[in-house]
């Protein structure tokens, strides 16, 4: 249990180990690094709840067809401009844009437009532009802004050509309490993924769950779980108790 948690948070564990080592050798440096991090921790605490609310709202409020039409592959120049504006009016560091980009991709936004949103989110922000004009002059700011916008649009175009939708990993909901695939037992036969492709997907030789809303798939999930040769699919659907 702890080991699998550690495996999932490889980065966090590694960084923690570095801190402990540094704390032993140069405690003052470790302390300094910790206090350097505090600003970013505060920033994260301020922005992540917003991102959470936004991803939920996108999921509930925005129909897939709407995203497909305005941010999809065929949304054209207008879609690119819309993405640029959307990224520019945001707040927060670039990692905050990742869940939003991912949610939009899942709803049919094109790779190119997601790249534009992420880049605009990172570089073009009103408070940042004001700050830049103050310290580097309006001319510097305006020139950099125009050039950046042009290159971001160009990058969106290139990335659209470069990256296919299949290159982007699907969000897995393995930790779900209602349906999960026991990774240690799964032998990677692929029966579940072929029987219920809407629910299961194969990734690196193991099956994973990809839907959160199971209500439409209860029958097929039961059937699939019965067929699983390793009995690795665990589910709990409406008061039926846990079945292995």
């Amino acid at each position, binding site marked *: 249990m702890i080991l699998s948690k550690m495996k*999932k*948070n490889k*980065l*966090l*564990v590694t*960084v923690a180990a570095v*801190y402990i080592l*540094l704390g032993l050798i140069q405690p003052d*440096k470790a302390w300094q*690094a910790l*206090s350097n*991090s*505090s*600003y*970013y921790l505060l920033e994260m605490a*301020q*922005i992540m*709840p*917003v*991102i*959470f*609310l936004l*991803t*939920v*709202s996108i*999921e*509930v*409020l925005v129909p897939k067809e709407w995203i497909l039409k305005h941010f999809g592959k065929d949304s054209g120049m207008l879609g690119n401009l819309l993405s640029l504006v959307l990224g520019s009016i945001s*707040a*927060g560091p*670039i*990692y905050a844009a*990742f*869940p939003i*980009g*991912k949610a939009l*991709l899942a709803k049919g936004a094109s790779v190119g437009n997601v*790249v534009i949103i992420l*880049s605009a989110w*990172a570089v073009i922000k*009103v*408070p940042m532009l004001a*700050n830049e004009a*103050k*310290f*580097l002059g309006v*001319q510097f700011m305006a020139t950099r802004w125009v*050039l*950046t916008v042009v*290159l971001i649009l160009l*990058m969106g175009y290139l*990335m659209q050509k*470069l*990256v296919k939708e299949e*290159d*982007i*990993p699907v*969000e897995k909901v393995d930790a779900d309490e209602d349906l999960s695939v026991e990774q240690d037992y799964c032998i990677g036969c692929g029966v579940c993924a072929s029987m219920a492709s809407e629910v299961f997907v194969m990734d690196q030789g193991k099956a994973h769950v990809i839907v*959160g*809303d199971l209500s439409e798939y209860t029958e097929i999930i039961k059937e699939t779980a019965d067929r699983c040769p390793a009995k690795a699919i665990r589910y709990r659907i409406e008061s039926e108790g846990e079945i292995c």
Partner: protein
Amino acid sequence: MDKFTIIFWVAAVLLFILSLRKGKAKVKQAMKQSRNMMKSIVGDIVGIIFLIGLVLTFIPPSSIESALGSSNTLWGSAIAAIAGSVTLIPAFVAFPLVGSLVQNGASIIPAAAFLTTLTMVGVVTFPLEKREFGTKFALGRNLLSFVAALLIAALMGVIL
């Protein structure tokens, strides 16, 4: 919290209230999905944040002065672009710092390169981006952004 973050908060809360009017069950389902995604992402973000703390301790913001002040513009710009890629300095620190250097006679080309890679290229956030969007996407976006930053810087040198 700055003004813009507050506006962002207000907008998110309003949208969330609108969502609730579409039905609680739907919202609950969406929250479950988002929670799963957040859970997996937050551990990485916290790891990245403490990594940034380490980077800032050993490569303090003031160390970019030497790159930006370099007499060789080409070399200085390359170093500045790389420095901007690996560090994550808050904008309110970076702008005054770079501004004062430019006022003291540093070239604007490395300055523009640094400011652009600082926000657009993320070596530290790369593992997170890779996990969310795949290697091809993360690598492509960061490399293209790096090239774009150099282009922006060079063009600024020509224009200004």
